[in-house]
């Protein structure tokens, strides 16, 4: 459903190298790699936020609805949760439903700054769901949450993916555990400029760590 033909991305010096890869419905991709390697840059390119990348580099995006969970909640702080969700084109009822789906029932009239970090992130996730996305982009969804909240959110996201088998997901993370629980494909960014290595055969717990080790070592792994 989506085909990346990215020639590279410079910020003064080359950050991202060539990225040629396909994403199909039902893909649950975890994108790993060292800090500052360009994982968020790649997500922004896929979401169409990077204006220096020609439109033709991401084939098929126009037909997709994308939900992007940024690292910060990026809800409008001057609008209630309900109003924030309604801005992406849903009714008040649907907004309340989406909030209930992420475990925030009845929170529609709260302002984003009245919520804890974990709650605000779930509210932002509710906004992603409100657009009924074909592709869900998650940028470190579990970062700076305490372990229990991170667990809850992981279970929540896994449940959402199971309920929507045609939805694709790309999740940036540092943690192999996330990949084991959520992913059926593994992407690994490495090198300078960063190249994308990937592995499509994920099965069973414990595999991810091994695969990660292999991906780190190998020059360029093909599926």
């Amino acid at each position, binding site marked *: 459903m989506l085909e990346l033909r990215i020639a590279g991305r410079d910020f003064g010096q080359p950050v991202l190298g060539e990225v040629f890869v396909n994403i199909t419905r039902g893909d649950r991709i975890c994108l790993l790699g060292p800090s500052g390697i360009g994982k968020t840059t790649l997500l*922004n390119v896929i*979401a*169409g*936020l990077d204006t220096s990348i020609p439109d033709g580099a991401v084939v098929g995006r126009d037909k997709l609805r*994308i939900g*992007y969970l*940024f690292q*910060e909640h*990026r809800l*409008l*702080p*001057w*609008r209630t949760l309900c109003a924030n969700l309604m*801005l*992406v084109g849903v009714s008040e009822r649907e907004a309340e439903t989406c909030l209930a789906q992420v475990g925030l029932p009845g*929170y529609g009239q*709260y*302002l984003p*700054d*009245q*919520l*804890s970090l974990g*709650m605000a992130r779930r509210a932002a996730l509710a*906004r992603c769901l409100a*657009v009924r996305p074909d592709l869900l982009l998650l940028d470190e969804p579990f970062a700076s949450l305490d372990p229990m909240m991170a667990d809850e959110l992981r279970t929540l996201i896994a449940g959402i993916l199971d309920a929507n088998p045609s939805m694709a997901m790309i999740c940036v993370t540092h943690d192999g555990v996330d990949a084991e629980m959520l992913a059926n494909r593994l992407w690994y960014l490495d090198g300078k400029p960063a190249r994308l290595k990937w592995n499509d055969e994920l099965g069973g717990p414990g595999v991810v760590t091994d695969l990660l080790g292999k991906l780190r070592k190998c020059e360029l792994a093909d599926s």
Partner: protein
Amino acid sequence: MTARTGRPPAWSYWVVLPLFVVFWGVFAWFLRSPLLPTPLQVLETLMVESASGQLWYHLGATLARVAVAFTLAMFVGTVIGIVMGRSRTTNALFDPMLVLLLNLPALVTIILMYVWFGLIELAAVMAVVINKVPNVAVTVREGARSLDYRLEQMATVYDFTRWQRLREVWVPQLFPYLMAATRGGLSLIWKIVLVVELLGRSSGVGFQLHLAFQVFDVAAILAYSLAFILVVQLIELAILQPLERRSNRWRQPEMAHA
């Protein structure tokens, strides 16, 4: 509130201002000069002018000019400021003009407008607008430059329309700058409008001050100034402060969790 920041406590106004009036009264009573009337004389003049309707007519004329000039200047200045803040090219084109206009004395603009267009209402209002637009533009430009790119990205991902982006994303962020431009704008426009009226109109507070000046009627000058100050404070208290409170409500939400 600490002593160093924010507004002084309310009682200071109720002490300092009456003390000033008393001091002025005593001084004027000793001097017994028509050039410094007592507060009571000023109040009396104010009553007379108010009863004859003169005060209201001229205050109204000034207020109308201020309202029109202010609206125009805020609108034009905001548009220019946003465009300059968002586009380097536009900024490069307009910035030299801003520097020029910011340093042009208000009096020059007024005289030129009257010379070129005649002593008409349009020239009067235009002169005020031209004086004010650069200030608004500079203030709003600062705001437009500091717009949060993270919210811009969010608005792009979620396909906000132009109108939604302006109303929901930009205006709330620009609001403090718009308020600053409004405050600074009103106080500047009041003063310029008076000069404009003094030089070339036959109505308004400025015109009345002109007449009073010609006959050295200090009581009338002070009476009109007083009425004027009261109106400005009324607008501040009745319009600006409630507006600001309303728009800043989201900034101090009570925590729902914990």
